[in-house]
């Protein structure tokens, strides 16, 4: 007789309902475990004790008023990109082309700054910069959207390709402008400051932060309360239902991606016009990808993206501070960030599923032991066949 195979004691069941508090607890629990693990790794790598590590992190992110401003600005930028990508994600359109859309926006701004910065009045330059960066970002959102709408082209793969096409366009622009030598565009219009975005309230960080605040609120209401937001959510849930009520699915995809791309383009404008005043192929520092994770971690809720962005920026700054203090490479932050992301990603499972331990199996077993004699008899019967 064949041996009975693996008795399944654990069994995964999809959760039907989960209260907000349990969900939050699971997520926070995952973050805490990840932070503890990060602390252990940091301690091992640097020889500092965990308390020192903690204070070093705090110091890296909030150690001085300048550090606080930069942390806030970086958080605002990451938040802005996450928000920009969100409408597309709510439509279940996997736009991983944020990088490219930002670069194109930055390219548009840099192009105007370098070509017209010193020949046109500053108001016109700014306007041109805004228009060109938003237009190029939107264009980079439009291309994968129209392909998806017309031919159902896989958007993950097409947006990925467009990222590198944008990178190469920027590289091309740079060597075109600086054909010899370093191939680096320094600070653009350093003397005239033409095309530099205005400082608000005496701080050059304020503009980005203010725009982030405004857009976070606007996007929340756009996605959740506007008619267009409603349309894109219906398209994301079921294209058939959308068609059934006369929503033009293709147009909604294109419109939403134009908005997503335009907002990314705006971030490019802020990076070039307000933050860095230069353009490089790595000006996004991979934030276009990080933002995808932020948006997803926050369940596409713009307000939850605020703490999520802050957490990531904090870890990054803190780890850099730590690493440079002991002479280690600053990529240390990316390792820690990766670990935290793994835990948050993994914790999603416990929100969606629960593990059912087969309790009734135990009950059956105890029943069986009571009726053991009977079972044996029936077994014997079987042997005779």
């Amino acid at each position, binding site marked *: *007789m064949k041996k*009975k*195979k*693996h*008795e*399944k004691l654990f*069994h995964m069941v999809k959760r*039907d*309902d989960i209260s907000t508090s349990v969900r939050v607890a699971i997520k926070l629990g995952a973050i805490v475990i990840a932070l503890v693990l990060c602390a252990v790794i940091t301690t091992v790598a640097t020889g500092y004790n965990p308390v020192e590590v903690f204070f070093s992190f705090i110091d890296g992110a909030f150690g001085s008023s300048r550090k606080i401003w930069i942390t806030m600005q970086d958080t605002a930028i990451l938040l802005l990109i996450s928000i920009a990508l969100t409408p597309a994600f709510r439509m279940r359109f996997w736009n991983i082309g944020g990088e490219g859309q930002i670069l194109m926006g930055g390219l548009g701004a840099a192009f105007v700054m370098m070509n017209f910065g010193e020949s046109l009045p500053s108001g016109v330059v700014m306007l041109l910069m805004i228009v060109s960066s938003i237009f190029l970002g939107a264009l980079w959102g439009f291309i994968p959207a129209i392909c998806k709408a017309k031919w159902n082209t896989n958007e993950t793969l097409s947006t990925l390709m467009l990222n590198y096409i944008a990178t190469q366009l920027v590289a091309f622009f740079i060597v075109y402008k600086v054909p010899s030598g370093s191939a680096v565009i320094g600070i653009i219009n350093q003397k005239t400051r033409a095309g530099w975005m205005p400082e608000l309230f005496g701080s050059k960080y304020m503009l980005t932060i203010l725009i982030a605040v405004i857009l976070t609120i606007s996007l929340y*209401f756009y996605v959740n*309360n*506007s*008619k*267009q937001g*409603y*349309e894109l*959510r*219906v398209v994301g*849930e*079921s294209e*058939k*239902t959308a*068609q*059934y*009520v*006369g*929503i*033009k699915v293709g147009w909604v995809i294109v419109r939403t991606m134009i908005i997503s791309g335009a907002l990314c383009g705006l971030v490019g404008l802020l990076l070039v016009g307000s933050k860095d005043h230069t353009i490089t192929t790595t000006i996004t520092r991979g934030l276009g990808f990080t933002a995808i994770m932020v948006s997803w971690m926050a369940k596409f809720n713009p307000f939850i993206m605020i703490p999520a962005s802050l957490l990531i920026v904090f870890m990054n700054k803190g780890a850099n501070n730590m690493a440079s203090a002991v002479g280690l490479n600053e990529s240390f932050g990316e390792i820690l960030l990766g670990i935290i992301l793994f835990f948050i990603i993994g914790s999603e499972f416990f929100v969606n599923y629960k593990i059912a331990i087969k309790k*009734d199996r135990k009950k*059956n077993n105890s029943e069986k032991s009571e009726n053991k004699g009977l079972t044996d008899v*029936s*077994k014997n*019967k*079987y042997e005779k*066949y």
Partner: protein
Amino acid sequence: MEKRIEAVKMQKITKNFGQVVANKDVNLTVYKGEILSLLGENGSGKTTLMNMLSGIYFPDSGEIFVNGREVTIGSPKDAFDLGIGMVHQHFKLVDVLTAAENIILGQKGKLDLRAAKEKIAEICNRYGFVVDPDKKIYNMSVSEKQTVEIVKVLYRGVDILILDEPTAVLTPQETEKLFHVMRNMKADGKSIVIITHKLNEVQEISDRVAILRSGEYIGELITAKTNPQEMTNMMVGRQVVLNIEREEPVNPKPRIRVEGLNIVDIEGISKVKDVSFTMNSGEILGVAGISGCGQKELLEAIAGLQPVVSGSVKYIEDDGTEAELIGMDPRKIQEKGVALSFVPEDRLGMGLVGNMDITDNMMLRTFREGKKLFTDKRKPAETAKDIVDTLKVKTPGLETPVRKLSGGNVQKVLVGREISNAPKVLMTAYAVRGLDINSSYLIYDLINEQKREGVAVLFVGEDLDVLLQISDRILVLCDGEVSGIVDGRTTDKNTVGLMMTSLQKSDQVYEKI
């Protein structure tokens, strides 16, 4: 009578999906060399029960014995090892692979397609199948795919074969062929479970009938010793006296006129052929036909969802002005002022958004109203509350995503919404599929109420008894063609049944409108 050997015995099987009880304490025995019909209404838990036997689902509690030995079936592989194979209603085939590759999928050992093809040919000869082993699945017709599925299961040498509503997609000739094959398999000593809700098939093919009702095992009958009435009673739970009111249409006027409609699907197969008919206000036009013979395409074409090859659909106002609907999408139709409501067959996939709550689903039809940028949630919330109260929708709240509601409640929400915007035309596809008797009657009442208010109703149904009782006229479709339009009051089941399966226009008395 010879001693019957138990092939499979299921004891006290219970399975829940969230709050939905799919099976409760079900006992079922299958004997060697018999064909057992598993009979039950839609949603009675037949498929779930068999999915547990074939390893797709795992029971919450209960025991399964195969050949007298208790077993744990944790995966389809376990089931195959025990000689159990299932042909699912939705075929489990890989489209880009060939028939032969699909058939040997999951087997062990070296890949030897030639040997596999020989064995396939041998199986085909033994039971009378025709399969081209090198044909890709995506090039196959539905019945070819089904044949591949059955050969796949036989290839594994199963002794217990489960067929889930195999005839739903077949023509009568194909069904006859399938039954022929099934008899061959039975003669070969195999046990077959056929899931169905068609009584004539039960009588034709099976030795025994086991009946489920709302997830519970009701009992078993010997086919030869029972009759349709008894089976129906057990299936439905009480002596069904279908008693749907039917009033005379008041002042019927032509409302929708369909002329010469032809529809071809993406794969180039003709789905609707030269269909013409008229829908009148204050009248219910029933549509009868085997599932998949053009009903879906016809309704979607009228609703502006399906491109047509030729033909016209005219909407006729009370004053006689006509408007062509072909070429308009649902939004244009709505903007044109044509109040057309449509309860599609696929409720959660098309009519509603499963992940949105009841209020948000109310907005689907009306969210564009007004010039404001933002949606107005107040009115939909009122409509939602109204529907929940008057139709007695069982829900924890208006914020509950509709996918969490039971089938009947989902349908109430959908029908409620569709009639809430005072339609002139109402189309329903399988409006009571999977619903319990009470919900079904509520839906019938709602439809009749619409009729009284002068709405032109198109009622696509699968239960002929219901169609005969509710419809003023019945349009019978056969393979995409109109085989006749008959008077619902004077015709009988046999006539309609015959018209559904064969185009015999000349023999049939039908009124041309």
